């Protein structure tokens, strides 16, 4: 009996490599004293190996383990993105955790485990692997959110995330059950071949609706966004950076892949539901963002709004929208990692130095840092020549292409709102006098990562074809 072929092993090599290195990291952590630094290097090596595996499998276009996993193309593209995010958030985390005296090896092991889940999500060709990936990622996130176990806010964040996340997972699983009930398979590739027949079954539509709730929660779309501000604020800053970029990108990669199945019908009702979800997220996210005084909370609401922009790409169901999402995820990940990296450097013990006022006069105190943060804010607003602009352009254009011009107009108007709170930080940095003259330490590792992120958004903003050429072979 043939159970698996070498293609299967090669196709799942990024997952296997990450799994192997997380086990090694765990053992190093258990058997060596004061091994946090060692675990950091082991994990980094693991991520580099996994990146190598993903790039190697990129030209392949196959499935592994009897159509359970996708190999190459789409999966590789997103895997590399997640792995880079994981690496960057590790770089941001190391100096931060050392300063907060919470530098333990478990942190990096959890990051690796979450990344396994993410890679699995991007490569899932089956609803079961998607579920497995989502759980693996989320469970690691629950633990990471509560990583500062001595801090009340961190505990609160973890508990809220866990309770609501577990509830949302229930919806997802029930949806999968209904899809299985109406088609007899959980495999996306096989469900597509059955269309349009199962689409007439109301239970099938309900199934997709329930899955939509599950994914809506994971990508933080309104009305499933309630957990976002509290969780993002309470979690340690590097964890927030990882969750808001890696977690969102992973959730979107699987959202896009699974919903390409029902959206292939171009069903008017489903498109409207998604469009309304997108519109609500953009409106509420940007609206509530206006009144925030805490930067982490502001970025949490901004993350809701950006989920809205990206759902436009799914609602439009065009290749342009899909490419727009993929590009937007790259630019959003780099921008947010950079912004959170700066916040992590500015932050003082016990959650101090997180408000707008604390950034007053930063333009004079640390010109380089202020310039980088200004760039990230411009990119989030969607001002050229930064990558955020190109992403937004593609998403809005895809809405127009699908005859949802109202959604594009709505998107532009709500991004106008967002200008206020993104640019406000720039006003504070450059046009207000500093009230706080404490020395700001810039740890080299974090600062280098932030500079890399900044270089990335400029590069992809000026030469977006670097990514779009890659995507021609994916979608």
């Amino acid at each position, binding site marked *: *009996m043939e159970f698996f072929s070498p293609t299967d092993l090669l196709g799942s090599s990024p997952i296997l490599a990450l799994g192997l290195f997380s*086990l090694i990291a*765990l*053992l190093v952590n*258990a058997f060596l004293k004061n091994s946090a630094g060692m675990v950091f290097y082991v994990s980094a090596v693991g991520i580099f190996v996994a990146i190598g595996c993903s790039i190697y499998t990129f030209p392949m276009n196959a499935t592994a383990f009897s159509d359970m996993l996708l190999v190459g193309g789409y999966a590789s593209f997103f895997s590399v993105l997640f792995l880079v995010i994981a690496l960057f958030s590790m770089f941001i985390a190391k100096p931060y955790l050392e300063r907060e005296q919470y530098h333990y090896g478990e942190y990096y092991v959890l990051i690796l485990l979450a990344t396994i889940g993410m890679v699995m999500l991007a490569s899932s060709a089956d609803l079961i692997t998607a579920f497995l990936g989502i759980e693996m990622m989320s469970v690691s996130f629950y633990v990471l959110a509560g990583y500062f176990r001595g801090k009340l806010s961190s505990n609160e964040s973890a508990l809220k995330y866990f309770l609501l996340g577990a509830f949302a997972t229930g919806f997802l699983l029930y949806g999968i059950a209904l899809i299985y009930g109406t088609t007899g398979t959980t495999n996306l590739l096989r469900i597509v071949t059955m269309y349009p027949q199962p689409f007439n079954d109301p239970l099938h539509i309900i199934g997709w609706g329930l899955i939509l709730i599950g994914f809506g929660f994971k990508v933080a779309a309104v009305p499933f966004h309630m957990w976002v501000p509290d969780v993002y604020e309470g979690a340690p800053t590097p964890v927030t950076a990882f969750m808001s970029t890696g977690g969102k990108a992973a959730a979107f990669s699987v959202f896009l892949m699974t919903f390409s199945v029902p959206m292939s019908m171009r069903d008017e009702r489903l498109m409207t539901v998604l469009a309304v979800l997108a519109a609500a997220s953009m409106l509420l996210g940007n609206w509530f963002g206006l009144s925030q005084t805490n930067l982490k909370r502001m970025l949490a609401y901004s993350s809701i709004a950006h989920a809205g922009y990206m759902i436009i790409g799914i609602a439009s169901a065009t290749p342009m929208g899909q490419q727009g999402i993929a590009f937007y995820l790259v630019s959003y990940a780099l921008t947010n990692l950079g912004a959170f990296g700066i916040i992590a450097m500015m932050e003082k013990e016990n959650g101090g130095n997180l408000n707008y006022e604390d950034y007053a006069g930063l333009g004079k105190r640390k010109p380089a840092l202020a310039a980088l943060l200004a760039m990230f804010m411009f990119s989030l607003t969607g001002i050229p020549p930064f990558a955020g602009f190109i992403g937004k352009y593609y998403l809005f254009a895809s809405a127009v292409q699908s005859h949802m011009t109202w959604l594009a107009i709505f998107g532009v108007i709500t991004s106008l709102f967002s200008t206020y709170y993104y640019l406000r930080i720039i006003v504070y940095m450059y046009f207000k006098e500093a009230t706080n003259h404490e020395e700001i330490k810039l740890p080299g590792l974090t600062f280098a990562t932030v500079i890399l992120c900044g270089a990335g958004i400029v590069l992809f903003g000026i030469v977006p074809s670097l990514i779009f050429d890659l995507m021609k072979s994916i979608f």
Partner: protein
Amino acid sequence: MQSYIPIFLMIGVSAFLGIVFLVLQRFLGPHRPNPEKLSTYESGMPPVKSARERFSVKYYMVAVLFILFDIEVIFLYPWAVNFRALGLFGYVEMILFILILLVGYLYILKKGALQWD
């Protein structure tokens, strides 16, 4: 929808029977209230104090770890039943599975999660 009728019938009948017995015992059964009947049952002994005590968090740790390794055995069961059919492939897979759990076991052992004090 047709095939669900027996299920709805079943739900209806069981709900009806449940209500009927509850109502009947109210009318037919003897009614002799006694405070002893309301107290907690502890094998005939009078209860000492409230059951709502605080437990050491160590119990939870042990309980959670127990569940983990208990589930491992549940996964071993179907494999053991189909051992011949799965052959060498199943054997290698199971060894891998146990090795992964072994890493977890070594981790908790070294971290002192199984030490009571």
